[in-house]
């Protein structure tokens, strides 16, 4: 399904301008064990519903930002910068 994604810098643009990168996860500490890093690299919630994700405005301003998106409809989504993640949670 095609839709317009909101870039916090440029506003609404066609989703084809963007690259989906990954669902947002807390990065393990540098000295975390092998299992924890393996889980971080490979395992995903892959949620049917609202999840927070990394997106990249590839054909636009080149910004990385976060999107809270409902993976069943795309129509209700919120875009914001990483620095605003903490106050959102």
């Amino acid at each position, binding site marked *: 399904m095609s839709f317009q994604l909101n870039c916090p810098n440029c506003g609404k643009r066609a989703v084809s301008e963007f690259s989906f990168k990954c669902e947002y996860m807390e990065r393990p500490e540098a000295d975390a064990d092998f*299992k924890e890093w*393996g*889980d971080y690299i490979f*395992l*995903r919630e*892959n949620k049917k519903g609202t999840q927070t994700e990394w997106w990249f405005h590839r054909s636009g301003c080149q910004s990385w930002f976060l999107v809270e998106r409902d*993976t069943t409809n795309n129509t209700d989504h919120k875009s914001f910068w990483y620095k605003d993640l903490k106050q959102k949670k």
Partner: protein
Amino acid sequence: MTERMWNNHEMRSSYDVVIIGGGAHGLATAYYLAKNHGITNIAVIEQKFIGYGGSGRNTAILRSNYRTEEGILFYDQSLKLYEDLAQELDYNLMFSQQGHFTLGHSTASMQALTTRAAYNRALGVNSTILDPPEIKKMLPEIDISNHPRYPIMGALYHPPGGIIRHDAVVWSYARGADQRGVHIHQLTEVQDILVENGEVRGVKTNRGTIHCKQVVSCVAGWSSEICKMVGIKLPLVTHPLQALVTTDYKPWLHHVVVSSTLHIYLSQTDRGELVCGNGIDHYPHYGMRSTLGFLESYAAHLLELFPILHNVTVQRQWAGLCDMTPDYSPIISMVDDVDGFYINCGWGTWGFKGSPASGWNTAQMVAERKTPDMIAAFRHDRYVKNRLVGEKAAASVGN
């Protein structure tokens, strides 16, 4: 008088095995559990109708020219089961082994295709490399000139590959299972899986709770949601994949044609329609709607290969869900922490061609409660153990 292919039953309060998902994988698992292992007290639970998911949405292409030893042997078992399936299930599956081309448009892809041909032949799978004039001889309408943006440099040709009627595969497995006593419950949605002391105890559905000691999840694109119910996190991301079919034309395309550089594959059905498929959409999604963007890019790429198609009419477009794994190989696995729970997923864009071998080996795993050698490499925890089965070059287009 019409004869029902499978029956509706009252739901029992307990079954020996509950299979979640009434697609080709779930129904094949039920069929082989009944036929090969004599286990018939089985319920197949489907949230919509059988074949609603990927089994009825794929482009019906079968082949076994994979890249890894594990993959080649597995898909070859599947192709051999498909060859005898119409006879075995007494159903016309219209399997046409018309040959399968994978086109190469760069030196890198020719190198990958040459490696695949060598691996395939070493394991007894018929695969060979053709140069552009040889391709032109078999596909006279193809443009092998240097005019397109990505000229054709060669192809991997796989004679046993072909197309089959995918709905009939689902229906005949359902009928075969039903005849052996399996209950198929459609419009039945799983709400929870009951686990006590690390053992499966039952499945809670919108039509009541079923007690059972073995549960098999065969829900492909929806696997992450089902496996969460027993606390398992999977390495899956669900993307839609779009396809289209044109109106019917007189027979002109007698082989399956795939180009991974151009992200397209197509074949012509017995009715004359062209069935055309694409790579996955570039972001994950659980909806199954079509986009104009797909249609435009597909058409542009298709015309590079076959300029004669500039006037064809598209009849309809659709999408299906693909549960993509990081190494493009499936997951067929027991689970250490939950006794009696089996995972069959990770079928991405390569699931339909694997369904007979998937059902065959999953049934053996459930019946014997141990992993058959054929699928030992496809465990769910191979990712964190760094034992990936890399099929990226062979399992999909343009990913």
